């Protein structure tokens, strides 16, 4: 696309430099959009759905709440045992405390690294439902949103699209920043009746002005989940000694599955009556009055203690308590405020990304941002189709001599470093363009690339 070159011999004038930069960013914005738009639409739709995860799951679980009780509730340990029998050879992974006394117990059992949620009637001990954890509706939506149902490869594509989308928002802001506008029309209010060209231009520019900040926020807060950026982030924290003891987000399902398979092993002989079992931890966890949903997990290869964890969506009211595997006494308690300040920041970012930080308003902002992103995509497509001549892609024309200043070069370098997937992609594209695409006249013409410099 462009050349990062050493200081130019004949320095162009300031307006010319600006025009050149504008043209260059326009081209970046165009090519990035071409790649990103399908993913932005997919992520916006799945993201909007996922914003309502608590409500949707509450609706899906409604048949398993307020059950008809046929006597006293069975002890938790019996509920767990029934669930374990349902999946032959499985181990107990966690128990979700029912929100109400007449709700089904949700026992998570694991076998061969695959988790299944078993719904158990608290009095009759009937199995009401058993569903692999990854097959639940919201888990599927999440998997599409995070990895396009393609595992780690999908995660990489999402990360790449998100990285390019950040470039798009930044370049878009530069391109449509109101330098010469008079009044709010065409900046914050679209001109809807000034012909179709102005209409689509304004829809794009005005929506962009409104949602850029929120879109950028969603894109940046999504990064900790990604494979390359997220793992790099963890690595930087390890190196700088700011690592979390336990972080509550993982990068991929592959990582999660491996973690599970290694940790839950089989058990030996019976302990005496003064050693805590799941009944005791459930009772203590209930008495601790943690914010819902609350799960308890048995001691395992990774953690010698029983754990009771609040998985509250806002992350701020999350508390986790460790109970001794011996006598069930409380060993330690960690609230959100006890976490490392970086984890607190990431946690708040994630909660806002998921629409769970400040109630319905947070969800509404998420939906509006997603709608804004879809509007941007649709209007971009319309503008492109209206402008693109027959037979070519319709990219903005390249800068004649392809030279840019050192400052911009540095900026690109910094972006490439901060978003490594973007950086790798830039190098790949530059090499491909230089070596192949620009040298074949027909593809060069179609893609709107510059003629390679002849030395």
């Amino acid at each position: 696309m462009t050349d990062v070159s050493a200081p130019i011999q004949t320095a162009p004038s300031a307006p010319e430099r600006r025009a050149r930069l504008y043209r260059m960013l326009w081209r970046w914005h165009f090519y990035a959009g071409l790649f990103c738009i399908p993913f932005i639409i997919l992520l916006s739709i799945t993201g909007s759905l996922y914003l309502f995860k608590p409500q949707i799951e509450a609706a899906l679980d409604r048949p398993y709440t307020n059950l008809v009780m046929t006597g006293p509730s069975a002890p938790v340990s019996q509920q767990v045992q029934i669930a374990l029998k349902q999946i032959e050879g499985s181990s107990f992974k966690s128990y979700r405390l029912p929100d109400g006394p007449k709700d089904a117990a949700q026992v998570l059992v694991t076998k061969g690294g695959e988790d299944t949620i078993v719904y158990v009637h608290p009095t009759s001990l009937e199995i009401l439902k058993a569903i692999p954890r990854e097959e639940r509706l919201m888990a599927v939506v999440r998997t599409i949103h995070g990895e396009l149902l393609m595992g780690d490869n999908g995660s990489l594509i999402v990360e790449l699209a998100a990285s390019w989308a950040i470039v798009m928002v930044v370049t878009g802001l530069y391109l449509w920043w109101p330098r010469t506008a008079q009044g709010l029309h065409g900046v914050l209010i679209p001109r809807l009746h000034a012909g179709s060209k102005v209409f689509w231009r304004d829809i794009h520019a005005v929506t962009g002005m409104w949602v850029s900040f929120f879109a950028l926020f969603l894109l940046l807060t999504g990064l900790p989940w990604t494979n390359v950026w997220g793992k790099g982030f963890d690595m930087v924290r390890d190196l700088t000694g700011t690592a979390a003891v336990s972080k509550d987000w993982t990068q991929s399902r592959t990582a999660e599955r491996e973690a599970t398979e290694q940790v839950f092993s089989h058990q030996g002989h019976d302990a005496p009556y003064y050693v805590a079992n799941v009944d005791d931890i459930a009772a203590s966890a209930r008495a601790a009055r943690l914010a819902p949903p609350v799960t308890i997990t048995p001691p395992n290869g990774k953690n010698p203690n029983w754990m009771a964890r609040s998985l509250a969506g806002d992350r701020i009211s999350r508390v986790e308590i460790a109970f001794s595997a011996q006598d069930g006494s409380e060993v330690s308690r960690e609230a959100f405020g006890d976490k490392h300040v970086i984890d607190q920041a990431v946690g708040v970012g994630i909660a806002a990304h998921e629409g769970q930080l400040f109630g319905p308003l947070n969800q509404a902002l998420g939906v509006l941002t997603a709608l804004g992103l879809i509007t941007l995509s649709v209007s971009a497509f319309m503008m492109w189709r209206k402008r693109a001549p027959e037979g070519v892609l319709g990219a903005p024309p390249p800068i004649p001599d392809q030279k840019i200043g050192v400052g911009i070069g540095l900026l690109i370098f910094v972006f490439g470093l901060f978003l490594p997937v973007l950086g790798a992609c830039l190098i790949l594209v530059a090499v491909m363009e230089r070596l192949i695409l620009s040298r074949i006249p027909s593809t060069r013409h179609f893609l709107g690339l510059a003629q390679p410099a002849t030395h």
Partner: protein
Amino acid sequence: MTFSIRALPLFFIAFTGLAACEPAMTPPAPMLAVAKIDGMEISEPRLRLPPNGRDVTAGYLTLTNSSDKAQKLVGASSPKAERVELHAHLKGADGMAQMRQVEQVEIPAKGTAVLAPGGLHLMVFGIKDPLKPGDSFPVELTFAGNRKVGFAMPVVENPSQKTEGDMGHGGHPH
């Protein structure tokens, strides 16, 4: 954008519809009570299976006091056992946990007392008939003022204990 403006009420209805399906906001509720007495609920009773050949074991439960005054549990008994004592686990001077009999267990107003391993429990001595998991064991609690309440404690198994040698079973990479 014209289509989105026209669709706005639809979005609004969908949004409020979903928002109406509120998930739980309060902490998980206590389990269904097995007995009640003067604003006090007894839940999650369970008796641990006595160890092989023994007639002694411990019983656990949760007492939730929703009344405005503190309540006192002062005794317990069972027709199926010689005697039932109120016990506490206390750390002795040597650091070893020891069991001691206690006179009473106080449940503060609007408070909860959790009887569980490592703390308060019902110590059951002289169990008359052999027990197996799933059996019911009748118990009667006595509160201050000679107020009594009876219920059944289900017999539950003791936890399986992990031992060093078992760690390899799960396929750990060594």
